[in-house]
């Protein structure tokens, strides 16, 4: 019997939109029909590919793409079977990472118009970037695309009589001028939803000062003392 813990979720101190991890998501709208080739990068290296088919024929308004566990392409009699996703026009792709150390990005390239969407560079208007924060402490939020900053405080968890139910994500609009809310406070395991309203945005949330709670008391420590009999000679020989 053991606890199965997603270690990376508990050890992440920095969450950035250009390197997705278990605590972050990017939601991107696909307005136009067409075939798109997708590449998934992990720490700058292509690890998977996929095809996204946006067409009126399809009814899906959302596809979830797990950047960690997308299956490898299968080699089938010389042909390669790609991972295929079907989406309706104006549907959304939701990028997430189920496990692992993060730093994932994608490039989506339209086969027709050669338009490229690269999360490793910038997020664009209408993109959503969601960050879930677990560790209590003070975080700095930065929009590197527009040089704006803000602060997020994650409170220390309170063990109450009932189970804690997190609130809905706090929405922050990101513009060239800055964050619509630059100083927010939330409970651990709650989220911040960044609505990108600028052409280029790169959001980074860094842990500045962790709050690990009160120090745990050590167990009892006994001070060792020694007493020497003053009446006994130190040169007594052992029999």
């Amino acid at each position, binding site marked *: *019997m053991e606890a199965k*813990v997603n270690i990376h979720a508990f050890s992440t101190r920095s969450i950035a939109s250009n390197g997705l991890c278990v605590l972050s998501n990017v939601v991107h709208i696909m307005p136009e029909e067409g075939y798109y080739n997708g590449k998934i990068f992990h720490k700058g290296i292509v690890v998977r590919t996929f095809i996204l088919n946006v067409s009126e024929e399809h009814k899906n308004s959302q596809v979830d793409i*797990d950047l960690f566990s997308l299956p490898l392409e299968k080699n089938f009699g010389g042909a390669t079977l790609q991972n295929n996703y079907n989406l309706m026009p104006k549907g959304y792709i939701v990028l997430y990472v189920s496990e692992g150390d993060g730093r994932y990005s994608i490039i989506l390239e339209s086969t027709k118009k050669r338009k490229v969407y690269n999360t490793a560079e910038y997020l664009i208007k209408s993109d959503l970037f969601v960050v879930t924060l677990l*560790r209590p402490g003070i975080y700095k939020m930065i929009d590197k695309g527009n040089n704006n900053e803000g602060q997020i405080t994650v409170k220390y968890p309170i063990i109450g009589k009932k189970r804690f139910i997190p609130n809905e994500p706090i929405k922050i609009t990101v513009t060239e001028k800055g964050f619509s809310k630059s100083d927010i406070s939330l409970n651990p395991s709650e989220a911040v939803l960044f609505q990108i309203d600028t052409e280029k945005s790169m959001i980074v949330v860094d842990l500045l000062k962790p709050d690990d709670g009160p120090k745990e008391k050590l167990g009892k420590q006994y001070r060792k003392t020694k007493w020497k009999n003053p009446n006994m000679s130190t040169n007594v020989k052992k029999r």
Partner: protein
Amino acid sequence: MTHFTVAASERTFTKLFEKVRDNVSESTSGSHDLGAFSVSYNAGFHLEGGSLNLNNNGTVEVSELDIVYDPLDINFGIDLPKICVGGWCILPTPWGCAIRLPRICVFSSNPDIILPIDIGGLVESEISGAFALKLQHYVDPARTPGMTDLDAELAGIPNLLRVFLDPVWLDIDLIDISDTIGNILDAAIDNVVDGLLGWLPRWARDLIKAILGPIVDLIRFILDIGDDIDEWLSSLLGTSLGLLDFALTYVADYFAQKYPVYWIENPYPILEAENSLIPVKIPLESPNVQVNNNEFILTCDIGA
């Protein structure tokens, strides 16, 4: 007038009953899936105490006969809820959620946490009941058709007249020892949780505990303990595990068939073997047993 009569007072009969009681000892084990949690157990029991009353209606009444469960090791397999983050609806519409983020689980126990509790010697049931006397002519299965009564005696398998206590009715109740069990349960839960989470940094432990809520209460909730631990334990041991029924059935069967309260050889050795001389055995005929509120009586005739 019958040839032979032997009567035992209620005090003597109680001693005979105590010998049967003291020989009862059984164990059982099993496992059950009870939906929200699973249970495996290893239980043994024996009998203690009890008072006996002989009745004029021919029954032997036993009250407050204790079934002591020892060992009683119960392991609960509990599936703690997973802790997942995400899953937010980020684009609600009047027709439902247009975009919902996937959930990422950051904590689960794999497999179910095992919560062991050892309550041997702390749980007792009490049996009360009434028994009628049952007389049986017993021939040992090892006796072959060619054997004479003396052959059987010399082989250690003589025929017997056996008197059993055949249950007329039996009741079983669980005894109230809630304080101890409640404490043991809480201590066991704390122990398991410490083992499960102890290696995590404090903030992570506190986060998990905050999300799960007080784990003792959570586990009690999962186990469906409620306010009355007696009722819960009684229901668990009785209904869910069938332990009380098992004990009751075993005890009833034991008294009714396995261990007689009294037995006498038939033919009866009136003179024992001496040097090379064979024992002198006398046949007992028309045996009868009865009780009244004073004594147990066996009567029979001696065959020619």
